[in-house]
């Protein structure tokens, strides 16, 4: 009995959680027309894919999509490798200025991105990186949040395995990538999802740093579409659905892996 109530309660919350997204997808399929009349219907009376076609025809969305994927993958891989290295140094090693450097990590988590927007742009210009992938990838290769998260995680890993490996003559890099990395899978899964989502959805920097159609990412392309074609809900929702569908799909496909990563690597003392 208790279980049934619990189950129903969770179902209710699930509906609340998913309802707005459903609304987005179903509205995207509604025919253009007097929307005011059909706003109260969850499902369209006639289903149409015209809105998607319109949005897709308005720009090289396949190119935007590829750009987003490329930038997302590079940034994610970079963070998995580099953030782990940095976090490992903070968690396990003693070195000069450790507290100070960790302080800079915390500091960068607290500074709003808008603060350093203009100087960053100037810097990119001096490097000649405007309108290149470099500008979109390099500054985010080690995100402070990830370093922080991984450091917290590494603290609670048992030291014994690393010490044993060291006795067996493993090098520092071997210890990090052969022993610590596999043990950190759950935290790295969180870092991975986190970073990819962040990179996929980020708007302001790609918008400022790119100039041509070939370099735009999906959110930038969408914002430009919205700017030119005004707001009619069906098209906006179609555009929104188009840009979120890929990540939703990726998440649903890898969902098992991600959750398993979270559970399998759990440390039981």
């Amino acid at each position, binding site marked *: 009995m208790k279980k049934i109530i619990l189950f129903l309660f969770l179902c209710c919350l699930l509906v609340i959680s998913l309802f707005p997204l459903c*609304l987005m997808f179903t509205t995207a399929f509604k025919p253009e027309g*007097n929307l005011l009349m059909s706003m109260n219907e969850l499902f369209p009376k006639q289903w149409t894919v015209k809105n998607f076609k319109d949005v897709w025809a308005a720009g090289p969305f396949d190119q935007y999509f590829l750009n987003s994927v490329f930038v997302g993958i590079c940034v994610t891989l970079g963070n998995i490798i580099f953030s782990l290295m940095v976090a490992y*140094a903070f968690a396990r090693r003693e070195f*000069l200025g450790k507290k100070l450097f960790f302080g800079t990590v915390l500091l960068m988590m607290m500074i709003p991105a808008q603060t350093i927007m203009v100087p960053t742009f100037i810097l990119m210009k001096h490097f000649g990186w405007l309108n290149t992938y470099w500008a979109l990838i*390099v500054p985010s290769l080690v995100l402070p949040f990830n370093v922080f998260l991984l450091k917290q995680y590494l603290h609670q890993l048992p030291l014994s395995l690393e010490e044993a490996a060291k006795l067996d003559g493993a090098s520092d890099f071997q210890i990090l990538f052969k022993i610590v990395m596999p043990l950190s899978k759950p935290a790295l899964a969180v870092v991975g999802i986190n970073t990819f989502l962040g990179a996929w*959805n980020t708007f302001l920097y790609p918008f400022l740093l790119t100039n041509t159609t070939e370099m735009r990412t999906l959110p930038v392309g969408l914002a430009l579409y919205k*700017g030119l074609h005004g707001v009619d809900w069906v098209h906006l*929702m179609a555009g929104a659905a188009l840009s979120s569908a890929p990540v939703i799909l990726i998440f649903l496909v890898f969902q098992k892996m991600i959750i398993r990563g979270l559970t399998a690597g759990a440390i039981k003392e």
Partner: protein
Amino acid sequence: MKKNIFFFMFLFSSVSFVALAADLHVWQFSMDEEQSRFIVERFEKENPNIKIHLQQLSWDFGNDKIITSMIAGNAPDIFEIGSTFGPHFSQSGVLRDLTEEVKDLKDKYLMWEPVTHEGKIYGMPWLVGTRFLFYNKVLFKRAGLDPHHPPKTWSELLSAAEKIKNLGPDMYGYGISVAEEFSPWQTFIPYLWNGGSDVLSLDLSQTILNSRATQNTLSFYRQLKSFSLLNRQEQIDQMFSAGKVGIMLSGAWNFKSIAKTNSLLEYGVTTVPTPEEHLPPYSFGGGEMLVILKKSSYPKEAFTFVQYLTSKEVEIFLSKEQRNVLPSLKEALNDPFFSSDFRMKGFSEQMRFTKTPPAHIGWIKMERVLSSMIDQVMLQEEPIEKAIQKTSLDIDRILQETHEKGEISDKKLTVWILLLIVILFLGCWFFRNRLEPIGAFSTWIFISPWILLFLIFSLYPLLYAFLISFSSYHVLTSHLSFIGIRNYIEILKDSEFRKALYHTLFFAVGTVPFTLVISILLATLIDHGKVPFKSLFQAGFFLPVVTSIIVIATLFTYFYSENGFLNFILTTLYLPKPDPSWLIHKTWALPAIMAMAVWSSSGYYLILFLAALQSIPQSLYEASRLDGANAVQQFFKITLPQLKPMILFVVVINTINSLQVFPEIFTMTKGGPARSTTTIVYYLYEKGFSEFKMGEASSVAYLLALIICAFSYFQMRLLREKI
């Protein structure tokens, strides 16, 4: 031999000829890719020595982009600006003086005011528009009004609006735009002008708003309110198109959207009503200006292209294509196209009676103040006289602001920054803990990615922002002079900043605890409840996190709108709903955005807690079960204490994120209504990118960072002890 020389000379000259082809970079908002391709191709055929690189900008963020590249010295040769920004750019001294070139064109075009400064002209008007009256002929007939005689005077407008309102409970006589940045004042100022008042005196030195005429106009406007729909322009446009609003003052973009959403609507367009008959019906005019940068290497070619874009053919072509703009060339308005159709006819009729807002550099701030005045009178029932007085005071304050001059180049600033870095480094080295080991070589390799990226992409920009937070820095001109801590004092004295701070704290206090409780509870229920379909729940709750915040904000604007789904649910359940609707309600706008924030971020923390729950040893639960503890006791005695590090982490991170809330506000409310959702980062953004005061913006950022640091510090202290 000689032949060879000639040959080489020929070769050389042809090479240099190719190299001489001018590369013009043009940034614009108004043409879509297809139209611009067509136009550019034609131009390049006629002018083979000019190559055009056209880039399209978005309306929402285009200005940020122009400004950022202006600071970086990377701006295009030609760009398009809205007339509102005209004064800023013309006074900045970065635009090319076109007075000589356009001498003969002056009488031929409309709307020079925005690009004129002290008698000199810095741009060309391109495409123009105005606000005019739309009325629904069917509703006129039903209300017993003559559909061929739209209201010409204020009293006719009032009585027509009343009759239409009386047609039914969901009918509105008129639509009054409120709770946003631009539309409220743009649709109000025609009445203000026609009522005999204005915002600034002719010489732009003082405000003349506080007058009998303004009071009369506002009380007329308030009378109109009882028969009107109060909402954002977008909603009013939609309701007009749906046949629920009888009359509205709006713009030409409606032609297309009405044709799309309700092509059968019978409506007419005409000029703005005046207090009495036979007065010139002035309305607000605005438009797009083309300007050339002083720094452009090809000023002549650039002007050739500007002339081409403002030629009769191109302007008419664009008006015909887009049907929501008019040519700035007066002669082009005589084209039969503009009298062929009742819509274009009414539109161009109104265009002959347009005024532009005062070309004052502070106008961008004043328009915000004006819109806020309308919100106060319309939404908050503030006494008219009081609202006008407050607004005049605000406008006076804006008028008194002065602009510092003085120049420091980017290079000097960089030298300063490097110097600061060296000093910082030496300081750290001197005060280093001598007991600490330097560290192994491999340690430094591990840490190097962070150090490198931090030094280049964080420390340099941070110090840059730090230095300009102590200076007055006008971004358009890059005039910079050090003024000590005056920015900080100004900011702390500004009541707008205190309001923004209050909203931000309210946001954080209202979201962080909810998110925390929901995510812990759900994580524990999913993990320990042993319910079926566990992974379905995990995925379902996480899904909102996957979606981009811009998408979510757009989606919720739809969800929260007057006829949106939320109000539909409330009506179905016979529950009260706020009036006016959520996002334009002064008290409910911020909580509505907060609810969205809780919805969209809980899933993320849920996953973090799920991960943390895995690391709690099962033996603890087993032992307690043997001792007879129930699920609730287990939760409080085992789960919560074990989750402590993660709780601390989530609270700190979530607080930091909440204090930096921005994209939601930017997409959903732009700080309105009556500035009730302005947060600190939004305030910062306005300072830097619409008032062009980077210095003040940077000091806001540093104040915010300070607040965040303080919060995080106390949270860490408190939670470490408590739990």
